[in-house]
């Protein structure tokens, strides 16, 4: 296939940092030839192939699914693979590592602090082990019950919300939007019985009440998840629980055989002949 003609030359101001050599991060400019449709990730590849092979960043899927290429692009945390260069600027753009994380090198943030916090909130179904591990039957959950937490499951752990959070910028002990959203996702799940366990962390020092609802996490999320909402729902749940005003959550039942589910009898669509 013939190579497309470059339409523009865009200057990339890229943050460079090698902790073994550099005292502090610095910015280096690269003139990148940009075609229509090129993403920032493509631009970085172009730099590596044509200008500077030492530039380092993290990526994997190139289609906004894996969440590896979260970066600070033109001052906003977002996915490099999901951001077209010419949609941002016709002259120059800035690319840096996600804020609020240690830098491993250049554009690679150390996400371990985020994943450690994520692990702290028990991001899994908490329920009686024997019932959970039994291969017999399945938990019944209605579409409405699924809807209550569905959007929070779209989180890809890219860390953009953590990079945008002003509270996290000043206090590293704050759990942050991603772990708190994961926490609320499981609180809302009717299969789960771990609220009391998570409430200790969510209501603690670095928990949900440190959030001032700046809303940046929700604005920057590349997957349209609303962590700000999750945290406010979590706060409400914690307060109602403290005041003993929360309704008792009924965990969903496990159905043991066919026909016990409410939808099963009517699920088979009648055979139809498609006209024409």
């Amino acid at each position, binding site marked *: 296939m013939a190579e497309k003609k470059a339409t523009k030359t865009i200057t990339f101001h890229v943050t460079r940092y090698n902790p073994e050599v550099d005292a502090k991060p610095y910015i280096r400019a690269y003139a990148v030839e940009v075609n229509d449709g090129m993403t920032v990730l493509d631009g970085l590849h172009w730099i590596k192939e044509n200008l500077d092979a030492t530039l380092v960043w993290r990526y994997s899927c190139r289609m906004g699914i894996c969440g590896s290429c979260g970066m600070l692009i033109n001052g906003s945390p977002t996915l490099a693979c999901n951001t077209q260069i010419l949609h941002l600027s016709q002259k120059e753009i800035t690319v840096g590592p996600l804020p609020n994380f240690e830098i491993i090198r250049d554009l690679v943030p150390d996400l371990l602090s985020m994943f450690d916090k994520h692990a702290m909130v028990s991001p899994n179904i908490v329920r009686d082990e024997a019932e959970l591990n039994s291969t017999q039957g399945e938990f019944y959950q209605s579409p409405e019950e699924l809807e209550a937490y569905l959007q929070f499951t779209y989180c890809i752990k890219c860390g953009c919300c953590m990079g945008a959070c002003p*509270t996290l910028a*000043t*206090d*590293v*002990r704050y759990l942050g939007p991603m772990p708190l959203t994961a926490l609320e996702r499981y609180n809302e799940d009717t299969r789960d019985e771990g609220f009391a366990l998570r*409430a*200790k*962390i969510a*209501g*603690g*020092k670095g*928990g*949900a*009440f*440190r959030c001032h609802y700046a809303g940046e996490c929700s604005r920057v999320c590349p997957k349209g998840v609303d962590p700000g909402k999750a945290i406010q729902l979590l*706060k409400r749940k*914690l*307060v109602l*629980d*403290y*005041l003993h005003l929360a309704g008792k959550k009924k965990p969903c039942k496990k159905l043991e055989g066919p026909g016990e589910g409410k939808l099963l009898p009517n699920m088979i669509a009648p055979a139809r002949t498609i006209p024409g």
Partner: protein
Amino acid sequence: MRNGTKYWTWHMAAGVVLLLLLGLHMVIMHMGGSVHLFAPRGADAVSEANSQWRDSKICFALSYILLLGVGLYHGLYSLRTILLELTLKPAMEKAMTILLVIVGVGLFGLGSWAAWAAHVVALAGGKG
């Protein structure tokens, strides 16, 4: 571990009470004189006579003390939240919390004494 929930719940509750009491305060200050709401002695709601009349009522004295309490708690909790964002050392944070509690209790004691003294003086003035 769950103290955050407890403190924040009371912070919100104090905010609601503040809104109600400040609403009452605004009504009395700006409408009390013209409609004689809690201001039976003349058209000036903040005149000494009207103030003394309100001070002599125990419900008002208690509302002043309540306003002081919720205002101090709401304000000092907010201040503590702001200071916590400075990411101080745990010992420093504990010292700061203790200091704020001491300041809060001290100011509450002083203000409550003043409100109660005003109530007693107004009562004595009324009888005299």
